[in-house]
C-alpha cells in the first residue's frame, strides 16, 4: 500500500468510526431493545464508506487496517476486549474478499462486509462469554449489579434473542451493502456514463 492509501483508509476509518459511534448512541433511545439493534444501524450506515473504500483503494490490507484502527481506538477508550474482536473482523473481512482483484467485485465486498459486521455485532456476546456475570460486575462495577448482569447474560444467551440479533444484523448489513453499492455508483463510480443534459 502507498502512503496515500494508508492516509485515506485511516480517514475513512474515522468516518466509519464516528458514524458507528453516533448510531450506537442513537440506539440507546430503544432502551432494553437497543441491545438488538446496537450495531445494526451502524452496519447500515457505514456500508457506503466500506464500499467506496474497497473500490477506491483496491489493495490487500485495506479492510484489515480499517478495522484495526477502530479496534485500537476502542482499546484506548477503555474497551480493550474490542481490539481482538476488531482484529478478527478485519482478518475475516480480508479473507472473504479472496483474491487481490476482488476488491472491486461488489459481491465479494458485500460478503466481506456482512461477515465482519456480524463479528462486530457479537461483541456484547463475546464480552459475556469471556468475562461471565461476575467478571462483568467486577469490570463495570458502576454499570452492572449482579441482577442486571444476569439479565444481560440471559438476553444474549437466549437462543431466540441470539437469532433475532443475528437476523437483524444480517438484514441491516445486506441492506447496507445495497445502499453502499447505490451510493458508490451514484457519486463515486466515474465509469458509469450518465445521460447528460444535451443527450
Amino acid at each position, binding site marked *: *500500500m502507498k*502512503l*496515500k492509501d*494508508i*492516509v*485515506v*483508509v*485511516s*480517514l*475513512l*476509518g*474515522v*468516518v466509519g*468510526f*464516528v*458514524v458507528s459511534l453516533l448510531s450506537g*448512541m442513537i440506539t*440507546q*433511545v*430503544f*432502551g*432494553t431493545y*437497543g441491545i438488538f439493534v446496537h450495531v445494526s444501524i451502524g452496519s447500515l*450506515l457505514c456500508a*457506503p*464508506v466500506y464500499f*467506496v473504500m474497497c473500490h*477506491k483503494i483496491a489493495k490487500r490490507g485495506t479492510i484489515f*487496517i480499517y478495522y*484495526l*484502527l477502530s479496534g*485500537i*481506538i476502542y*482499546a*484506548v*477508550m*477503555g474497551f*480493550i476486549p474490542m481490539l481482538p474482536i476488531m482484529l478478527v473482523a478485519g482478518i475475516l473481512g480480508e479473507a472473504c474478499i479472496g483474491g487481490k482483484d476482488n476488491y472491486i467485485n461488489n459481491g465479494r465486498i458485500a460478503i466481506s462486509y456482512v461477515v465482519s459486521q456480524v463479528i462486530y455485532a457479537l461483541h456484547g456476546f463475546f464480552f459475556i462469554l469471556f468475562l461471565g456475570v461476575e467478571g462483568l460486575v*467486577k*469490570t*463495570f*462495577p*458502576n*454499570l452492572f449489579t449482579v441482577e*442486571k448482569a444476569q439479565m444481560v447474560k440471559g438476553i444474549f444467551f437466549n437462543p431466540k434473542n441470539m437469532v433475532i440479533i443475528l437476523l437483524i444484523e444480517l438484514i441491516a448489513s445486506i441492506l447496507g451493502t445495497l*445502499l453502499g453499492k*447505490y*451510493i458508490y455508483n*451514484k*457519486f*463515486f463510480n466515474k465509469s458509469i456514463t450518465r445521460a447528460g443534459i444535451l443527450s
Partner: protein
Amino acid sequence: MKTEIQIKPISVGILMIIYTSIVFFCTMPVYWLMLIFSFFLAAVVKRRKSIQLFAFYIILFGLINIVPSKYFLYGWLGAIYTMVLIVLKLFPLWTLSGIMSDFSTSTMIYSLRNIHLPNSLCIGVAIFFRFIPEYREYLSEIREGLKARNIEITVFRPIHSLEVYLVPMIYKAFETGETLSCALITKGIEYDCKKTSYQDLSFTWRDYAVILVGLILLGITICQKL
C-alpha cells in the same frame, strides 16, 4: 532551532495505557485522582480546552446526581442513564484523548516512530487521533451548507437525508487524504533515512513525572485488588 513541547505524546500515550488498564477496576478515590490529574494535564497543555472539558464533566455529573438512579434502571431512560455513566467513567481517558488530538500529525508520527512501530501503523494511528475531533467540525460545516442551500433532512426521505451527510464526509476524507499525503511526502516521509523533527521530543522531568503518577495509580489499584 528545535521547539519544545511541554508534555510529550508518548508520555500521554503511556498514561492512557495505564488508565485503560485500571479505569474499570479502580476504586472511587483512585478514579478521582485519575480525573484530577487528567484535567491538570489538559490545563497545562491547553487551558481553554480543559475548562470546556471540566464544564462538560460537571454538567454530566450534576445530571447523574440530581436524578435518582432507581427511576432509570430500565427502559430507554435507563439506557441513556447507563450511557452517561459510561461517559463519566471513561472521562479521564477521554480527557487524555483530547490532549492527544491537539498534537500535530507530524509530532504524533515522529513520537510513534520513536517506539519502533511499523510506519503504516504510526501514520494510521496518528491520523485517527488527530482527525476524530475534526469530523465534528466537518459535520457542522455540512449542516451549515445544507441550511444555506435550504436542504432539509427528513425521515420521509431517509436515503436522501443520509446521502447529504455521508457523501460530503467521504469526499472530505479523500480531499484531506490528498492534502495530507502531499504534505507528508513533501516532508520526506517516504525517503529512506533517519528521520528528525523540529520538535524536541526527548523526555524531560515533566514526562517522567507524568509516567510516575500513572505508575503510582496503577500500583495503588493492584495493591487494592490483591
